């Protein structure tokens, strides 16, 4: 069964003089355990699509169903809670609270979820170890490299035990070595723990390693390829 179902999704930005059809009729299903890359030229609508899947932006038309919930019918307060409980986010930058350590950042999400202190500290350490940066648990983001920060971000995204992780260009600020390492880590999470990833990227090396590649042009899906193994 699909955990994400996008139906006839449209987004028109009309605050400007010329209305922009950022997303123009997208249908998409994502199954549990998929590792999906959304690719396409700049301005094609990747971020807009991911924001609507993540419940950050409202579609002009169409709907997003996550595990039987039509998320855009939720009241904004419920939406925030839905995000907190179901979706892990990784952004290109500014992911972490700069004044909290890596461990505190990961634990903070669980605190919002009202997980007990003991459990969240334990799980935060475990996740940091799994994402390969257990030794940096007490560092603040500013003292970590870009790649290390993104690992913490993935750990933070995983902390809430989400249905899937949504990542908008998670490697855009990383050098090729860090990109490869982060991708290895994500793929391993995907393989070992069946974590569903859906992310956008420009990077051909990232695209090459994705299981499924959905290409968007002008707000529409132009191709959707799943690698055969």
């Amino acid at each position, binding site marked *: 069964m699909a955990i994400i179902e996008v139906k006839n999704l449209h987004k028109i930005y009309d605050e400007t003089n010329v209305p922009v059809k950022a997303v123009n009729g997208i249908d998409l299903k994502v199954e549990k355990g998929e590792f999906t890359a959304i690719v396409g030229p700049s301005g094609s609508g990747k971020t807009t699509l991911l924001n609507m899947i993540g419940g950050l932006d409202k579609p002009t038309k169409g709907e997003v169903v996550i595990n039987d919930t039509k998320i855009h019918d939720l009241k904004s307060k419920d939406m*925030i809670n839905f995000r907190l409980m179901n979706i892990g*986010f990784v*952004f290109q*930058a*500014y992911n972490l609270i*700069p004044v909290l350590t890596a461990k505190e950042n990961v634990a903070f999400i669980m605190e*919002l*979820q009202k997980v007990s202190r003991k459990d969240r500290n334990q799980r935060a350490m475990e996740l940091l170890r799994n994402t390969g940066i257990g030794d940096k648990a007490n560092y603040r983001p500013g003292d970590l490299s870009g790649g290390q920060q993104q690992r913490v971000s993935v750990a933070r995204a995983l902390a809430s035990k989400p249905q899937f992780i949504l990542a908008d260009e998670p490697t855009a600020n990383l050098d090729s070595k860090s990109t490869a390492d982060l991708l290895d880590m994500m793929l391993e999470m995907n393989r070992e723990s069946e974590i569903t990833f859906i992310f956008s990227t420009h990077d051909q090396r990232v695209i090459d390693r994705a299981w499924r590649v959905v290409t968007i042009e002008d707000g529409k899906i132009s191709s959707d390829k799943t690698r055969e193994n």
Partner: protein
Amino acid sequence: MLTIFKIAWRNLWRNKRRTLITTASVFFAVLLALVMRSMQLGSYDNMVKNAVSFYTGYIQVHKAGYWEDKSINETFEYTKSVEDEIKSEAGISSVTPRLESFALASSGNYTKGSAVIGTDPKKEAEFTQLNKNVTQGEYLKSRDKGILVGSKLAEYLRIKVGDSIVLYSQGYHGITAAGEYPVRGILDFPNPEMNKQTIYMSLSEAQYLFGAPNMLTSLAIMIDDPAELNEKVSDLKNKLGDQYEVMDWKEMMPELMQEIQADNAGGIVMLAILYVIIFFGILGTIMMMSMERKKEFAVMIAVGMRKVKLIAMMFFETIIIGLLGVIIGAIAGFPINLYFHFNPIHLSGRAAEAMEQFNVEPIIPFSMDPAYFLNQGIVVVIMTLMAFIFPLVFLIRFNVIKGMRN
């Protein structure tokens, strides 16, 4: 909530210098305001206390209409019932009866107008400590037949202790008043005007001189707590009825009142300026702290943090910035004010002269009114809350998508 507070606290120290500058500006403004106001209010209390205990008292009772032309004809009878009526009012510390008028004082070829004050020597000593102004000779005994003369007046009349002078005047209802009085002592006041014209004698002698037995021109009243002045005045008015006029020092010494009001207005303007500085200091910092973190806020909301938590976080940040300066300012200001409360500043030069004109001792003891410290705190808290309106509105209107795109 604890984590939110922790984040807020740490956020403040992300830009240490900015936070320190803002805190320091609040600190100095609060310190200045506290010390300045404490000094100002203390000086007013001192001026009033000195002025009233020098002569008028906080309150005087006269026959209705006396104050207008201060005629010896406008006297009232000193009955026990009047005195009892006044003393029955709580919070009255002393009541001094006086009969005052004018007379020509002469000795040999020298003659000069003078103010003759008949009083109860014992009560007067308790009230104005007139006995301490005697620099030569002795203070009056009760029912004394002698007089005390201001130092400049004595100089003019070429007299010293043991000599006599003659007083001429018009007494009660036009009778001739005249008498010869031995000088018991010489008075020296800080106020030169008083030195030039004052003559004190016992009440009984003055009543005899002016042909007004058992009559008074005034009862001068001291009260325990100057803050209760208005209440006491209206109580006495009610008790005594409209045959009498009850006046407070503000009516009797309007120049002093005006002096205080003018000075106080200046102080309030200064305070307002300081407060505006504090306000904009806090506001500017809190504005920057909001604007520069748009992306951070956007991510925090995206991952599932409710806006109320962000608002709480910014509230802590704003309050800490405001209160840190206030608290340190108050802590620093308190001992300064306390010190000068018990060790008043002694003035010299023109300021001292000006104060002496009002019979005020030229010192400034600082006020230690706790209400004053509290008020300062409340004002800064209110301003901090006003500054908080910016991040509040900013966060309420905050849009995650726009925040991320910027």
